[in-house]
């Protein structure tokens, strides 16, 4: 995960203050963004996923034109193996999944395959 500028900060250019929406001001310091990122990962039960936080200068966001969300796969050779289009319309996990499997030399999964849920357990 690369945590970037808020998509819908309530003081931003495209606010979302609907009920149940997380109410977040656009961070103005790196420490603020870092804290919001942590809150996000905990709130969404994503603690086990490695995450990095973009600098407050938004340079990585800009380099990847990632706002508000976007996915890429970088191959072992350091080159872009998959470049998703900008979200939300371009945010397509199935495409990333296909690209990952191709990169790993695995066959593409049956799109109808069900996902089996397993309980999350902490690993030490």
């Amino acid at each position, binding site marked *: *995960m*690369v945590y970037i500028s808020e998509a*819908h900060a*309530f*003081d*931003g*250019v*495209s606010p*979302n*203050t*609907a*009920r149940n*929406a997380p109410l*977040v*001001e*656009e961070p103005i310091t790196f420490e603020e963004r870092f804290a*919001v*990122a*942590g*809150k996000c*990962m905990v709130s969404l*039960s*994503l*603690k*086990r*996923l490695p*995450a990095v936080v973009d*600098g407050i200068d*938004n340079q990585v966001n*800009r380099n990847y*034109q990632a706002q*508000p*969300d*976007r*996915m*890429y*796969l*970088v*191959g*072992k*050779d*350091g*080159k*872009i193996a*998959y*470049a998703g289009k900008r*979200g*939300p319309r371009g*945010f*397509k*996990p*199935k495409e*990333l*999944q296909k690209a*990952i499997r191709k*990169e790993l030399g695995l066959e593409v999964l049956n799109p109808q395959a069900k*996902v*089996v*849920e397993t309980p*999350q357990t902490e690993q030490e």
Partner: protein
Amino acid sequence: MLRWKLCLHPLSELGLAVLSTQSVILGFSPMLCAATLTLTLLCQQEEPPASSSLAPPPVWEILKEKYDTNHDGKISPKEHKRGADAFANLDTDGDGFLTQADIEAAGDRMKPRPKDRKIRNRLVLAPKVGEVAPDFELRLLILKDVDVEKKEAAKGQAHPQALRLSSFIGKKPVALIFGSYT
């Protein structure tokens, strides 16, 4: 609106997942070879909930508690201190003060204002397939108990504070999923 469901087997060495405006179900399935794992993603677009006309959002309460230091019922730029852009975004009537009326007038809008040109800079092109991925070194978000961190540090297992993308070259592919809480 965010919604996640996470199905997790032994952790993949592939990178991560982030999502922002869509709900994603992630599944990791161990393969025959222990070194290779696959990521199963299903995505469900979730429409943002209909705005509530019954309960106004508590944005004003948040702002008032945080910034109305003189308790006069309005917030001046000097009290707000988060930059002119953020202030202007909230100052619906443009009178130079943030009030409850400003917030209520805004409603649950999600209509984008003029695009944030500071980030969506069309002069910077997104990297394409086959191009070298722009390198970066960013601080790693580590969410562990302080006690666990101390134990690991004592064993010499302290996690790096920063992660450099190019450190994975020749080792493993990296999935980059950019997004945010909102």
